[in-house]
Structure formats: C-alpha cells, structure tokens
C-alpha cells in the first residue's frame, strides 16, 4: 500500500495542468514509486516525445528507464512483451494510434493472450500509450480512432481519458494494472478542452475543473465511468474529445441530458450505463471513429439488450463517417455540433 493512499483527494494539494503535463506527471509518479516501470518509444528519450509527454524523464531516471527506440512498432511492442515477461512494467509509446498497426500481431496474438495461454505463468503488464483522434488537421494518418480494433480483442483493456485529472489517475491505474492496457490520449484536447466549434479561439485547461490535478499519487479505477452531468432527458454515452463536444451541444440546446464519460471501454462500466438509461429512457452514443462496427455498435447493442423495456426512442448513434479521415474536409467529417444536434432533436421529438 502506498503512503499517499491515506491522503484524501480533497486534502491533496492540486495544480492546474494540461493533459500532457498530467500524463508526464503520472509517468513521473509511477517511475518514482516502482523501479520496474520503464518508458520506451520513438523520440521519447532525450527529446521527451513529439508531444512532450515524456519530457525530463530520461534526465531524471536515466537511460535504463527511459529510452528511444528504432522506428519499428512491432519491435517496440514485441520487446515490451518480453520485458514484461521478465518482470518489468513497460510503458511503450506509439507516436500516433494510426501507426499502431505494425504492432498489432504482438498486441493481439501475444500480449492479450499471454496470461490465458500460459494459464497465468506469464503475464503482460504493459501500458501502450498512444495519441489518437482527430480535429487537428492530421489527415488520414494522424487522426484515426482505432479503439474498436482493441475492444474486440479478449485480454486487452482500453482506456481513454477526457481531462488532465482523469488522464493522470487513469494512467497510474493502467500502469499498476496487471493486464495489458491500451491507453489512447485524445490529442485534440492535450492543451485544452474542445467544444467542436473549430472557428472559436482555442481554450486551455487553466480554468477548467478537469485541469485541476492532485499532486503525487492517486488512481482512478479502470472500469468506472464518470457522470459529467446528471440529467433526466436522455443518456449520452461518450468518451475522449467528444465528451466536451457533447457537453457544449447539450448545454447550448438546453437539454437536461445525463452525460456519461465512459473513461474505460473495456472493462465497461455497465452498471452506470444501465442505471442512467433506465432513468432517462433515451440514449445517444457518440464517437469520432467510423460508424460501421465501431465501439458505438457495441454500446447500442448492450443498451438494447439490457434496457429495452425502458427505451422510449430508438438509440441514436453519432460517429465519424465510414471513410478514411480526410484532410481538407475535416470539419465535414468530424461528428460536430450540427450532427450531434440533429440526433438530439430526433431523440427529443420522440
């Protein structure tokens, strides 16, 4: 048991951070607590990462703990699986989620199945961090949201934070978790929340309550959703950047929606989902990823199976289109205020 566990979060001093700083802080805390935590990835060492998430860590913990790797995602994940089998707790970074695919065989066939196929003799306690999501003019290969590829794999956990506070607490929990965790960081909200109004000046985390991050160690359990806003008109199931977009659209429409930030897709907080939909009778699912076979389909299906007699309207699903992520037509692709607003209107009409 860590000393800090005794400290209530309300008493712990806090500091306003952006999501990058919160992730950096989580890595710092865990490296300080556990000598087996090591960070590896392209540009993560001396340079501190292309998004600065690992800045200063190599200087503080040395090259044995934080090191640059060859540009080879299969090698990064494969080596991390071997390191984890030895007994380390590796935190590999994949520079963009769009580039995780060369490492998929190692993640799906190896990390996810290690505990099962060896009946617990070998485990893969690794946390793969990777920036994901669009809204930054990243085009086809710097914008993807491939979470459904991972939620479909038995043995992997998938976590997506939406605030600096959650990013730190969830990352610490992910690193401590003895199962392999895919930790997707919505890069659109690294520096500030995003309400979907791309023409407005960008915001920072400075005045946002989610940017208030406790100092030192704390963790947010995996598998627990966060109620962003309580309400009775409908349930909105959402995660990552879209949490903020949904919040803004529903506020602007003056709809008393209950917004649930899932935070962990696997394991999913099914109780929170059921409780809310049973209360509101309506459900809206939102994600940036493409529609067909996206994680939204799983959510819709679960709600339909488990809350059918409480539903007062068809479940709505707002997602990216079934196309590769475009560059110039980004804001026509992005599931923004108009698309969400229309779905909200349909639900309210029923």
């Amino acid at each position, binding site marked *: 048991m860590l000393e800090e566990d005794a400290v209530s979060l309300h008493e712990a001093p806090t500091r306003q951070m952006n999501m990058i700083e919160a992730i950096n802080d989580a890595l710092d805390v865990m490296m300080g607590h556990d000598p087996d935590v*090591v960070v590896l990835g392209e540009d993560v060492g001396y340079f501190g990462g292309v998004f600065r998430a690992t800045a200063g860590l190599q200087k503080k913990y040395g090259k*044995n*703990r934080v090191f640059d*790797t*060859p540009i*080879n995602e*299969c*090698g990064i994940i*494969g*080596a*991390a*699986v*071997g*390191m*984890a*089998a*030895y*007994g*380390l707790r590796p935190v590999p970074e994949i520079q963009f989620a769009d580039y995780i695919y*060369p490492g998929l*065989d*190692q993640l799906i*066939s*190896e990390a996810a*199945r*290690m*505990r*099962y*196929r*060896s*009946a*617990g*003799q*070998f*485990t893969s306690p690794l946390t793969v961090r990777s920036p994901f999501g669009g809204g930054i003019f990243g085009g086809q290969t710097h914008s993807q949201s491939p979470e459904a590829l991972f939620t479909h794999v*038995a*043995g992997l*956990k998938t976590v997506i934070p939406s605030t600096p506070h959650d990013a730190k607490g969830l990352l610490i929990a992910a690193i401590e*978790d*003895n*199962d392999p965790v895919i930790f997707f960081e919505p890069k659109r909200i690294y520096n500030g929340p995003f309400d979907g109004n791309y023409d407005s000046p960008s915001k920072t985390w400075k005045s946002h309550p989610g940017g208030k991050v406790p100092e030192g160690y704390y963790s947010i359990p995996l*598998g627990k959703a966060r109620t962003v806003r309580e309400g009775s008109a409908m349930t909105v199931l959402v995660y990552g950047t879209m949490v903020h977009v949904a919040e803004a659209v529903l506020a602007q429409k003056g709809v008393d929606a209950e917004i649930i930030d899932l935070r962990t897709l*696997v*394991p*999913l907080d*099914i109780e929170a989902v059921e409780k809310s939909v049973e209360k509101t009778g309506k459900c809206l699912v939102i994600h940036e990823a493409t529609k067909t076979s996206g994680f939204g389909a799983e959510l819709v299906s679960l709600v339909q199976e488990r809350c059918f007699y409480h539903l007062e309207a068809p479940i709505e699903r707002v997602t990216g289109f079934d196309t590769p992520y475009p560059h110039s037509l980004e804001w026509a692709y992005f599931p923004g205020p108009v698309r969400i607003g229309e779905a909200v209107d349909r639900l309210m009409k029923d």
Partner: protein
Amino acid sequence: MAEGPARSGKPRGNLPPLEFYVPEPRYRPGDVVDYSHLEIPEAGAARRPDEACDAKETWPLTTDLIRVLDENDQAVGPWDPKLDPETLRGMLRTMALTRAFDDRMYRGQRQGKTSFYMKSTGEEAISVACAFALADDDMVFPSYRQQGILISRGYPLVEMINQIYSNRADRLKGRQLPIMYSAKDYGFFTISGNLATQFPQAVGWSMASAIKGDTRIATSFIGEGSSAEGDFHAAMTFAAVYNAPVVLNIVNNQWAISSFSGFAGSERTTFAARANGYGIAGLRVDGNDALAVYAAMDWAANRARANKGPTLIEHFTYRAEGHSTSDDPSAYRSAREAEDWPLGDPVMRLKNHLIALGEWSDEQHAEMDKALAEEVRAATKDAEKNGILGHGLHHPFHTMFEDVFEELPWNLREQADQAISERRTKFPEWKE
C-alpha cells in the same frame, strides 16, 4: 509495349521482356536426389575467433559451416568443446529420449488420443546441445520444434503428455493446441502459434535482464521459413541497437511445411549471413553435429554474458519427417531427401563418436533405447490416467473464462453462467 515516360523522352528500345522468377526446389516426389551441389566443409576447418571479437570478424563463419565430428567420428578442430564422456552420454541419452518421445506421441495422435503432434526428428541435436550449453535459468523463447530443450531441462514427460492430451492434469487447462508448452519454472517461454513473435520478445527479455543488471541471458529459436517474418527484422534491429544479451537461432531444416528454404531467401545467401548486415555476430553450424551446436551456443552465450552483444546462429539441418501430423511430405518432396542427407543423423553421429572414444557400445545403445521407450511408455500410461483428448475428463467449465484477465469482468461472469446453464440443459444430471 509501354512507351517511355513522355517527359524523360527516354525510349524503351528493344529490351527483352521482364521475367518473373519463382524459386523451385531441386527435387520433387519421385526425383533422384543428388546433394553434390552442397558445400560441406571439412570438420575442424573453421576458425574459432575470440568470443569478444568484433561482429564483423565472424563474417567468414556465416557462410562457412562449423563442424566438429569428422568422418572417423572424432572430434576435431578449434570448435571441439572437449566435453567429458559423462556429458556426451547425457546428451546422447536426451536426444534419443526426445526421439522416443516424438515417436510415441506421433502414434498417440494416430490412435486418436490427441488432435495434433509435431516431431523434431533429425533436429534433436539443436535443441538438446543448446540446452546443455545454456544455464538452466537462461530464458528460452522456443518455436514448436524445440521439445528437446524441455526434456533436457528435466521437465516431466508426463506433464508434456498431459498438455498434448489436453487432459484434466494439463497445466494449461486444455486451452492450448498440443505441443504449445509453457513452463516458466524451466525457463521455457509459452509457445505461440504465431510465427516469429518470440524473436523480439526474447530480445526484450534480455534487454530487461540488462536493465536490471542481471546475469541471465535469453535465447530464441525460429525456423528458416519464419525468418521471413517482419518480427525477424525487428528482433535483429533491437538486438543490435541495444547490444542485447541474446542468442537468436535459425533452425534451417530446408522446409517450411511444403515450401523449400528458397522461399525464405536461401538461394542467394545463407541465413547466418544476414547477421553481419545488422552488425551482429553470426555463426553457421552443422545442426546434426551435437558438438558443433554445443560449441556455437557456448560461444554465443559467453559472448552475451560478457556484454559483447547478440549472436545469430544458423543451424543447418534437415526436417526428416512431415511438418506435423496434418502433413504428408511425399506430396511435395522426394522421399530420398531425408535418408540421403549428407550431414547424417545427429543421434547416430554422437553415438558413433562415443563408441569411437571407447565410451559407448552398440549393446549399451540398444539397451538405452529400450529403457527410453519404456520410460516414455510409463509416462504415457501415467498421463492417460488423467484422460485423453475428448474423453470426459475435461477441465471445469469456468476455467475457460479465467485468466483472460487477472479478474473476471462482468461480461465474462455472465458468459460463464451461460456456458454452465447450456451444459445443464444438455446434461440435466450433470453437476460441476
């Protein structure tokens, strides 16, 4: 024919049409086999550089063939590991035991006791001699054809058979295809069906050992066919970049199921020759010569332990039998290939060496073979007490859902209940 690009103005002229090349093995079913094209250097001729040498000094050894046992069954040259007779007899016994085990399990599959088996006939020297050269706590990341390592390390045969039968005593709870063993306590990493994935994992394990200032090293084995996988390149690059204390082995047994080694690139170079391109030491060794295999692994292990970096070893051998119990090699290669293999049979070569030393005899060998067959038979009988595949003695249903994660999430709890309820519907009298 296509015109040249308009902007360069360069005409195509009268060039001959391009030809697509697809490799073809020398011998197909019914062909007479002639191995005279194979360059088999004399035993004892290869130089043995210092274990701490620069990787590029090993260049000649990546195209040569390290051999110790000569035609007169004597150990010759600088690679002779000079093992004492007791150790040699131990190696011979373990290789013969591996063969006896394979034979028995192959028959077990044919008798319907299990679904699948893979023999390592002709390759026993590679796994056994490597295991003898390693420390017991060096971690091995094997492919599916290194059962000799488990046997060398004293893993109980009955446990292997329990796994092959997926019976109630199977430590992997019937989850894994037969022969995909996992034995952490014996330094034997969990075998995966996905080829070559273990190569970068072994490198990562050895990196971790170095990060922790440990003294243990890792070693991994893939076939020459799997060396075409991207994981091979990943492993070699990471091993070189971090000077990882790892020994990477390619077992070149000439065949990847039905495709000959040409489909992995053997027609233009050796597999060992790839090492130097990565800046890694490389050795090419007669894989049917237990002493040469031992010497090469010993050299590479010492090099890794001394922080001099990784080594790639190509073990040149021949897959004497089918790929698996699901394979019929007579459909794609000449039946004469195995018997005519110029590097002989690894068990016979070591046996003859011991006899030449005056430390063994045909009578002792025959007696040993009889005893080993009995040992395997007894282990089989013991394992059969725990059931054979499909004969009732399954693992409890809920075990199917365990170990996906450390703890059962809600969806797996629900699905476990469902599976048990289905079972009750099917067999109303059933009680778990």
